[in-house]
């Protein structure tokens, strides 16, 4: 496998995704999500934003999109990556050249993932800038690189899952629907299991919740960040989610297991299957 060819496909994938305008729409939404809350809080003069909270408000913009928007972004970028090439008949042209299937696969995977990382970074930069601009200098920013790494790592779960579904289905609309369904089902079941555990105290609900794909994704960045902030800031974290997983290690392991499984299944399927002709 040649790195130069993997990078060629990665650049191609970025170009393709940008040309599809989907990414531009996601960037616009990111700008909105990471700036609007600050101006809304400022404009409404809410009593929630107490002076001790102000230097930590950058956390709000960084964590608010974690549970839904960032995962949905990853999913939207990945679901069409392989499937749209089959639908448009372009996979055939690209793979009829002296390139290995692995180079193509990992190039496309990498290209899409770079876009996801770019959107996470954009969200962080805009959140910190907006918080600083609206509420003054921000503190504890040295924690941010750790949070960023955790968010980017956590995004691998639904990114890889949607990428796998795209390859298995080879139909973009089906891939979007199926990946989004799994994501939302996992979120809803997680909430449901939480309620059941609160009502009954039965551990099985709590343990079952650990293994939902959304649980480690939501938990890891929170578990890493929360201990670094004063207790007064915990309220801000609750806007994002409540960590479900018992520890950072369990969260990280579950994320690794989920994303590696998805990548391996997709790669095995792609390596063994025929390159389909145009399907629509």
């Amino acid at each position, binding site marked *: 496998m040649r790195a*130069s060819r993997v990078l060629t496909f990665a650049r191609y994938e970025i*170009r393709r995704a940008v040309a599809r305008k989907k990414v531009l729409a996601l960037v616009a939404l990111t700008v909105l999500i990471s700036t609007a809350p600050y101006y809304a809080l400022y404009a409404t003069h809410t009593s929630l934003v107490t002076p001790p909270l102000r230097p930590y408000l950058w956390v709000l913009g960084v964590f608010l999109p974690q549970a839904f928007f960032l995962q949905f972004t990853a999913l939207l970028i990945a679901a069409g990556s392989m499937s749209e090439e089959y639908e448009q008949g372009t996979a*055939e*042209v*690209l793979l009829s*050249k*002296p*390139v290995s299937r692995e180079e193509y696969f990992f190039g496309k995977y990498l290209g899409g993932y770079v876009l996801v990382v770019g959107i996470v970074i954009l969200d962080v930069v805009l959140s910190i800038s907006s918080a600083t601009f609206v509420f003054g200098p921000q503190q504890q920013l040295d924690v941010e690189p750790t949070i960023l790494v955790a968010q980017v790592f956590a995004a691998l779960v639904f990114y890889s899952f949607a990428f796998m579904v795209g390859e298995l289905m080879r139909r973009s609309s089906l891939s979007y629907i199926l990946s989004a369904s799994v994501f939302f089902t996992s979120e809803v079941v997680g909430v449901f299991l939480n309620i059941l555990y609160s009502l009954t105290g039965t551990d099985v609900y709590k343990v079952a919740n650990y293994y939902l794909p959304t649980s480690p994704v939501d938990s890891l960045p929170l578990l890493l960040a929360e201990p670094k902030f004063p207790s007064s800031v915990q309220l801000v974290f609750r806007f994002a989610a409540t960590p479900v997983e018992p520890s950072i290690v369990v969260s990280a392991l579950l994320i690794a297991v989920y994303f590696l499984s998805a990548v391996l299944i997709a790669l095995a399927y792609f390596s063994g299957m025929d390159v389909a*002709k145009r399907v629509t």
Partner: protein
Amino acid sequence: MSFEQAVKDYGPKEIGPVTFSVGQGEIVGFLGPNGSGKSTTIRMLLGLIKPTSGTVRLMQRDPLLDHVRALEHVGYSPELPNLQSFLTPKELLQLTAKELGLGRKETDDQLAVLLEDVGLIRYEDYKIAKLSKGMVQRLSVAQALMGTPKVLILDEPMIGIDPAGVVQFRSIFRDFVRDGGTIVMSSHILSEVESLCTSLVVIHSGRILFRGGIQAFISERLGSRSILVEIADPTAIEGSALVGRITSLSGVKQVTPTPAGLLVEVDPDSDPRGEISRLVVESGAKLVGLGHSRSELDEAYISAIRGSPTQ
């Protein structure tokens, strides 16, 4: 390239067993009706689909297991090319060059020459989405020629191309073969195949019906061959002994006067065109043209398809 008992089983439909080979320097016409297995055979050759059984070799390598080396010197232009509409012709060729591992200078040099050759130099910065079907087809052939291909696999390369483009492509393909290249070209335009190809592979319902030279195919499928003798003033030969003298030539089965001259039916293995032209000239008639009927390949092809056991 070679196929040895290659089969692709799609469940309800099976392509193969396919067995044939193509040697260096050939321009092979790959003929068959829609759905006969041409594209499947080509896609097996390119390592895009896996044969259920049998072996396929391209540049003497397995195109599936040794894909990179097997396709190192192979250019492919697919049927109804679905090229990346968001790229420009220039960007597409640059992408192709990167896939082929070409350097920047080599890419720039080749890119300009190829776009000029296929008549797209003026459109190099247009989005492919804005190009006409014929232009996309030209671009598809250009990307197949990128690098240093020794083999070109062309699936319906003349579809949508204007007559000037067809002439241009013929010249490009002939030059390519003259320089030692090999071409496998599927086409439904039989006159194009006849004028360009040196041999044929005919496939029908997933089975190879014929592999060999065009003349051999015509001889095999048609009980006789037709020679058209065009005479400036056909009334001049009415009542003359010319018809009888041509009829008496070895291999001639029947001579029929036509408004343009004569239609001579001959045994498939004989070629008395030299003697016929001598006799016409000796009779005092003015010979305007003499040659095999242009529709012979069409007739032979239709005969092969109709007469195939799977029909």
